[in-house]
């Protein structure tokens, strides 16, 4: 019983609204009617009536729209109320809104951040590169944020390797640095040529990027997404 009563209340309001907005250009009237119909979906008559009180009478709503002006729609044909149907939302013939592109969704952004964070651990180098490409395509981070997330790990790694090499070169004993010096031996294999990165440096670099820096930047990217739904420049 209550559901039927709520539907009667809704249909009565929309019928009066259709009459009130009959002089408004079609596109605007359809959008206005659709937006109001969305708010009248409650099946509770009391809640429905409370919402209608907040909306104001159809005449007041229509008058407010007329006073606000129609912009470029002043020459458009006037609104023709749709035929009465049980579902007011189905009767609104407005053009379907464009679907949100995948790269503008939060799901895509979070997934790309996760792949950036752990892709390098699962598939060294290639996994991280895939994550970097996905992050680059997401529209929910700014160009600066994406640059920071992608450039920082390898740049920090290169810096760490250079600093490590410089320290090692500065503190290495002479016989290590000069092949002709007495005592120069290559038995240890490490630090034989301080001008080339040692295997330890390369391994350490991979660990630094894959295990520490990449997940850190991924977490930072996800935190930047908080409350963000609009594309960033």
């Amino acid at each position, binding site marked *: 019983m209550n559901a039927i009563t709520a539907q009667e209340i809704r249909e009565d309001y929309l019928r009066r609204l259709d009459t009130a907005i009959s002089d408004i250009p079609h*596109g605007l009237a359809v959008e*206005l009617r659709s*937006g109001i119909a*969305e708010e009248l*979906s409650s099946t509770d008559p009391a809640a429905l009536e409370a919402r209608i009180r907040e*909306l*104001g009478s159809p005449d007041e709503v229509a008058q407010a729209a007329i006073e606000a002006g129609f*912009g470029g729609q002043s020459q458009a044909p006037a609104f023709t109320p749709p035929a009465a149907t049980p579902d007011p939302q189905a009767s609104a013939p407005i053009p379907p809104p464009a679907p949100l592109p995948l790269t503008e969704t939060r799901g895509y952004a979070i997934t790309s951040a996760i792949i950036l964070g752990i892709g390098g651990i699962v598939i060294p180098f290639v996994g991280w590169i895939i994550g970097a490409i996905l992050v680059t395509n997401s529209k929910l981070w700014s160009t600066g944020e994406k640059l920071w997330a992608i450039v920082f790990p390898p740049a920090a790694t290169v810096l760490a390797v250079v600093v490590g090499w410089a320290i090692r070169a500065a503190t290495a004993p002479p016989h290590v640095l000069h092949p002709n010096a007495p005592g120069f031996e290559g038995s240890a294999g490490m630090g034989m040529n301080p001008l080339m990165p040692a295997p330890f440096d390369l391994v350490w670099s991979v660990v630094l990027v894959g295990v520490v820096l990449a997940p850190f930047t991924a977490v930072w990217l996800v935190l930047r997404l908080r409350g963000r*739904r*609009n594309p960033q420049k």
Partner: protein
Amino acid sequence: MIDDVTTQLRRGVVEYCVLGLLAGEPMYGWQLSSELIERDLIASIGTLYPLLSRLRDRELIVVFEQQTESDGPARKYYRLTPAGEDHLARFREQWPPFTSTVSEIIEKGARR
């Protein structure tokens, strides 16, 4: 009661207020109108839709459908386009010096 002066002022800035609200998150029509009515910037939801229509014509906002609750109907949400963000950013730059200038002028007149 909204007088003519306040009405004119509101008409001048309400579209930027809509852009400002949408900069925070996409919103549907009732959500936007509630925020604006609560702040006394519009009197009725009827005022909002012509404004939204103009903003869409200027490609400052776009509309998309999204389901709000798992068993609820889909609603039409509005969100900013990059052009809308630029437009809002330019207004943000211009608003403080504008209000400062107006305040200075009208205060001078009051002191005479």
